[in-house]
């Protein structure tokens, strides 16, 4: 599928101009690339082609021998299935919620860390730590040690007896994801902040711009590329969220937090509807393709910026 992603900018200059040479020279150049390329094609593209094929089959693994070609029926049933539409809406909500909140928090923390203060590297180490905790361990920690109504930390510290996961399932999942992904956003934005030219900032200060004006008029436009990159990379990773949903809510209550990966997982391993699961998978790929095209444009833009510096 993925080869169809348009190369965003055909004018991108190669780091080193490829030399025109004979066929032998071209193969010598290609040789180091081939093992990795072939491996990636075999392990990622071939399965996807098979998924495409399976998505046209009426096939429930519990009824072997009744596999047959059904054309686009699976797509029809998947697209009209209310569960899947709910899963789609939940995916968008969970992904967008986690990305937006972690971006905002990450920006605030990056601005704080961009200043000099005592123990800055210690604070940075503390801030990246949530990202390093194994995702399923983090999900379990939040579910049991933080959200639990009787002995969880929130109720333990602030009183009350709210059952956070049952009362606010989406927020509970999003908060866990935000905790884990804010460090990621912070690191990208901090790199952006530190790539600002200090002379220009000094000049603005000399010209009498105040801190807010400098941030609003100079830093934010400079950070735009980095904000986009963080948002898009974050979306690509978070659209696949499975651990947190599987652990904290099991998609519930009802289908309140069932996202597409979890729904496909259920279709595959609980209902054994292989045909429908494949069709749903293809739809997810198409959606990701849209996001991915934007992502590639941003990434190649960033490379151009680095080159021109």
């Amino acid at each position, binding site marked *: 599928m*993925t080869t169809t992603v348009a*190369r*965003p900018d055909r004018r991108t200059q190669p780091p*080193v101009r*490829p030399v025109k040479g004979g066929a032998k020279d071209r193969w010598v150049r290609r040789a180091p*690339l081939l093992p*990795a*390329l072939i*491996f*990636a094609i075999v*392990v*990622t*593209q071939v*399965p*996807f082609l098979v*998924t495409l094929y*399976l998505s046209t089959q009426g096939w429930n693994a519990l009824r072997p021998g009744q596999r047959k070609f059904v054309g686009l029926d699976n797509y029809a049933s998947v697209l009209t299935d209310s569960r899947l539409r709910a899963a789609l809406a939940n995916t968008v909500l969970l992904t967008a919620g986690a990305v937006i909140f972690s971006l905002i928090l990450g920006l605030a*923390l990056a601005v*704080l860390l961009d*200043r000099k*203060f005592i*123990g800055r590297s210690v*604070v940075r180490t*503390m*801030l990246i*730590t949530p990202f390093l*905790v*194994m*995702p399923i361990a983090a999900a*379990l*920690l939040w579910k*049991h040690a933080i959200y639990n109504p*009787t*002995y969880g930390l929130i*109720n333990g510290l602030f009183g009350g007896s709210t059952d956070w996961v049952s009362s606010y399932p989406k927020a509970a999942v999003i908060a866990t994801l935000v905790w884990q992904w804010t*460090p*990621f956003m912070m*690191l990208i934005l901090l*790199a952006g902040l530190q790539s600002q030219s200090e002379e220009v900032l000094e000049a603005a200060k000399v010209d009498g711009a105040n801190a807010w004006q400098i941030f609003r008029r100079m830093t934010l436009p400079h950070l735009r590329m980095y904000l986009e990159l963080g948002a898009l*990379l974050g979306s690509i990773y978070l659209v*696949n969220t*499975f*651990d947190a949903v*599987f652990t904290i809510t*099991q998609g519930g209550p009802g289908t309140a937090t069932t996202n*597409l*990966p979890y729904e*496909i*997982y259920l279709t*595959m*391993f609980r209902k054994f509807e*292989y045909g429908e*699961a494949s069709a749903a*998978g293809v739809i*997810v*790929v198409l959606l*990701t393709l849209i996001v*991915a095209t934007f992502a590639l444009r941003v*990434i190649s833009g960033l490379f151009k910026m*680095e080159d021109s510096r």
Partner: protein
Amino acid sequence: MIRRSLWGVVAWIAGIVFVFPVIWMVLTAFKQENAAATNPPTWFFTPTLDQFALVFDRNMTPFLLNSLMASLFSTLIVVLLATPAAYALSLRPVAKWSDSLFFFISTKMMPAVAAFLPVYLLVKHLGMLDNVWTMVILYTSMNLPLAVWMMRSFLLEVPREVLEAGEVDGASLITSIRKIILPIVSPGLAATALICFIFSWNEFFLALNLTATNASTAPIFLVGFISSEGAFLARLCAAATIVSLPVLIAGWVAQNKLVRGLSMGAVK
């Protein structure tokens, strides 16, 4: 000056808030069960290693060894595949180098669930379910694009002039790799390997669906805690601390290179 230290205090508070759940996890791991699940929270207690002992009694070691094997071998293969590929996309580029580069990254953008069923069926057909080597192959493909992009961004830092001067002096490819390229990119190589290791170690979806009793990795050990009843919080925290520890250490050590790896080399 006062304003500056004020912002420092705010940053410290933010840092402590963010790291607090992790500190709480580690503290709880050293409690007895009756001190772990209390309201209000227990702050002072006599530390004990009982929970760690208990977790290892429940046979956690094979899970850790499987994770170690799957992560180490896949990282090794990834580096062996990605470094030459990155070389052919940077220092001695093939004609359509940017097409290949974007092909690699686009495979990373495909959600794992989308192509999972055929992989599952094939693995089952080959009798490779519950086999560590299956995980090695899949983790290799999961990390390959990341490693290619990352290694390429490090290889581009090798100064062309030095490389060309070496060629003029008649240095063979092997010599220039050994004497010029490797010394410059080896920190990058280490960072790439570390990030691939982190992603393999933490991977959950594939491990959950492709392993059972023999090849289960560390995250799978935690699945039993999802709907636990009774007193288990301290034990859970001990297990979570153990499985997170390798990545915590690796990440702290490599934190300067983390952002570059996670952004696939786009941000330096």
